[in-house]
């Protein structure tokens, strides 16, 4: 075939993808024109659609882009990644069902609104929106940058990274800005299956080009025997008391068992983020949650992570030429149709996450911040228009940062998951732990955010700019910022809940409590299993992602005459993680069905009727609030400049 014939496939597949996307946007827009549902798909998405899209968004392209590359570069030192499917599914198992019923009762459609009605806390609303913004600009932006780099690589520079990111930004706006939540749900199904197919095919090529599974593992065994490489196949101790990366801590020694455990907590932030809850609240029934979390996310997508992503990474580890870029480059030269299909699949996964994040952030800014606090007279149509504008602006900001400030983008991206994990405490307060009071939840999240910021590059770089040098770097003691933040968060929640009035609940919070102690009360049968649930969960965490990983280093290794022998024909820690994944699916099943945390519930929930109140004209109050905000911002900026000028370097 000619060069033109080879280079035509990527644009052709991209065109087809764009056409299909616009078709679904049109379907969604037509349905929205008939009624409403721009923000919540009229709460009518089918449970199977939500289950699939939640799994797709949870995994998205970032497991391929980051996960496989991490294994290729650092080996199997972070096995928590391999059980990622279970870790991603766990928060949904815990929260989705109860939160869906709260949303149904209170007629709300986002995490920020749940916090507003339950806690009456503007801070928690802002925190939820801030997390959505971090995902939209940082987390998704970084992935779009990565995928744009691959576009440049695959077209031999004919399409630059800038052009690719502009095109992707435009597609993102077209998909989410026009079609809204319905388009995200509908097209998300196609994006998810495309991403899934791409990951499977990619790993297939990785294995075939490695000479098969046995040859790949023999290459890994050979690598493990070379000097200094044995550490690539084991977890290096439980903890190391280093000052953190950038302050004397070395990356090669950073992957301890506690690093794995704390990274697992960061992964568990995703399904506690406002992005995924948008999908949950847009679903017409909660009866697909258990099946979705158990079989789709933990089971099916967990298997894809445990096998396909790990295989792709392992191929890159055994042979540098078979890294992600190497495989895509070779495919583009030899089989451009497969290269195009895989690229579009990975890009679809990234776009799914980015679109959802942009939508949640745009909605948060307009519907949850601007409208209730600064312009309550804004009409529904006006809110939709402004949200579309916000989405466009955010897409442009992300695109600019992708190309001009990649370091800042990376620093912002690093905050998204650990900060989302800090929202666990207020979510637990709404769903399971009614003793968490409003001041405790607010302070806990504040402390949690501070803990994350102080152990991530963005926080200590900002402080350094103001002249304050922290004595620690990134992830001190090899503990991920998610756990540092949560330690501060939980400490604050426990102390403040103990000293504040636990009965000082709003009317809506009382309604929610009544709901969980009445129609949705856990059955006696499930209650008797509580201690077993705690035991198996803690045991799983200890062995699969915690200090028990140390046992996995040598669990399936024997000493032969010519050196160590891998009993299962694969690295021991990988086999250990596969066992962890299988047990993890069992754990999710047990929690979902036997503990009734996500099991189907056929209960009709009437909407809550709030007591009638006189509506007041809030215009003056809102204008005053806006003035205060502008003044505070200006004073803050001046103070920041003065501080940086006085003490900064």
């Amino acid at each position, binding site marked *: *075939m000619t060069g033109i014939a080879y280079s035509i496939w990527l644009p052709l*597949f991209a065109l087809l993808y764009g056409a*299909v996307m616009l078709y679904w946007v049109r*379907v969604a827009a037509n*349905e929205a024109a008939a009624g409403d549902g721009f923000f919540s798909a009229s709460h*009518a998405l*089918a449970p*199977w*659609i939500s289950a699939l899209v939640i799994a797709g968004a949870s995994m998205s392209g970032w497991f391929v882009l980051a996960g496989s590359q991490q294994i290729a570069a650092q080996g199997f030192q972070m096995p928590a990644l391999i059980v990622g499917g279970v870790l991603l599914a766990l928060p949904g198992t815990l929260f989705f069902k109860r939160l869906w019923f709260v949303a149904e009762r209170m007629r709300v459609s986002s995490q920020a609104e749940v916090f507003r009605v339950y806690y009456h806390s503007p801070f928690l609303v802002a925190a939820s929106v801030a997390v959505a913004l971090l995902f939209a600009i940082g987390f998704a932006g970084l992935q779009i940058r990565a995928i744009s780099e691959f576009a440049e690589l695959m077209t031999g520079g004919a399409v630059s990274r800038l052009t690719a990111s502009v095109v992707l930004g435009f597609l993102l706006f077209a998909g989410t800005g026009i079609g809204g939540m319905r388009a995200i749900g*509908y097209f998300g*199904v*196609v994006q998810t*299956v*495309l991403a*899934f*197919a791409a990951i499977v*095919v990619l790993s297939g090529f990785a294995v075939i080009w490695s000479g098969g599974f046995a040859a790949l593992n023999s290459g890994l065994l050979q690598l493990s025997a070379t000097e200094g490489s044995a550490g690539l196949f084991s977890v290096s101790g439980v903890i190391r008391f280093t000052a953190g990366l950038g302050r004397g801590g070395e990356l090669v020694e950073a992957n301890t068992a506690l690093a794995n455990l704390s990274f697992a907590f960061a992964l568990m932030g995703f399904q506690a983020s406002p992005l995924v809850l948008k999908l949950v609240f847009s679903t017409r029934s909660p009866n697909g949650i258990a099946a979705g979390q158990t079989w789709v996310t933990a089971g099916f997508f967990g298997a894809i992570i445990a096998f396909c992503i790990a295989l792709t990474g392992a191929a890159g580890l055994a042979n540098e030429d078979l890294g992600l870029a190497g495989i895509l480059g070779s495919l583009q030269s030899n*089989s451009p*149709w*497969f290269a195009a*299909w895989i690229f579009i699949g990975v890009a679809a996964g990234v776009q799914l996450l980015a679109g959802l994040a942009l939508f949640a952030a745009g909605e948060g800014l307009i519907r949850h911040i601007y409208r209730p606090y600064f312009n309550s007279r804004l009409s529904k149509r006006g809110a939709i228009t402004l949200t579309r504008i916000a989405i466009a602006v955010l897409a442009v900001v992300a695109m600019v940062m992708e190309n001009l400030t990649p370091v800042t983008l990376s620093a912002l991206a690093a905050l998204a998951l650990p900060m989302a994990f800090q929202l666990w405490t207020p979510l637990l307060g709404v769903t399971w732990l009614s003793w968490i009071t409003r001041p405790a939840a607010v302070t806990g999240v504040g402390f949690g955010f501070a803990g994350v910021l102080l152990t991530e590059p963005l926080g200590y770089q900002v402080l350094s700019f103001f002249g304050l040098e922290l004595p620690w770097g990134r992830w001190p003691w090899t503990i991920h910022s998610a756990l540092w933040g949560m330690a501060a968060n939980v400490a604050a929640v426990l102390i403040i809940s103990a000293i504040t009035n636990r009965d000082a609940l709003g009317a809506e919070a009382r309604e929610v409590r009544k709901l969980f102690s009445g129609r949705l009360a856990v059955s006696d049968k499930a209650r008797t299993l509580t201690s077993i649930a705690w035991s198996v969960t803690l045991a799983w965490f200890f062995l699969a992602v915690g200090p028990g990983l140390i046992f996995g280093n040598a669990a399936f290794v024997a000493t032969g005459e010519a050196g160590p022998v891998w009993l299962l024909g694969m690295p021991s820690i990988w086999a250990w993680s596969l066992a962890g994944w299988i047990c993890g699916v069992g754990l999710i099943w047990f929690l979902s069905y036997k503990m009734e945390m996500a099991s189907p519930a056929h209960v009709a929930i009437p909407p809550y009727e709030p007591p009638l109140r006189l509506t007041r004209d809030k215009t003056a109050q809102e204008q005053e609030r806006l003035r205060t905000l502008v003044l505070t911002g200006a004073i803050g900026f001046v103070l920041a400049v003065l501080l940086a000028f006085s003490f900064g370097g």
Partner: protein
Amino acid sequence: MSKPAMVERDLLVFSIWAVLGLGGLALLLEGFSRDSYLVSLAGTAALVAAFVAHMVVNAVFDCGFRPGEAALGISAFGALALAFIGGWAVGGLSPADYLSGLTLLATLAFGLPAYLATRYGLRGAFSRFHVRHADDGKPAA
């Protein structure tokens, strides 16, 4: 069929073709490119699987192919046949390519009556083409 059901059915159809259809196409092209009949056969099998899955979805939702789908399918079949004949005419086909192309076209050509027979039964399938005139079957006046 209600509108939400139609949307769900369409989503399934799009997903099936995104995976099996594009995968089959990629395998076919790979087979032609490598002169490998087996790889092309895998591509044909993937396309057949896509058709079967599409028909299963139709059966679940109790509907047939939509006019747009039928038109797209027939156009794609025509384009494939044209490309095959063109390739054969200019002598650009190796024996493996020739066999692959014939297998694909034969399979697809066989697929249409097979589909009609499974959906409408043998007699019903014939009736889809056999147009009865207004006076057929009526006793003479």
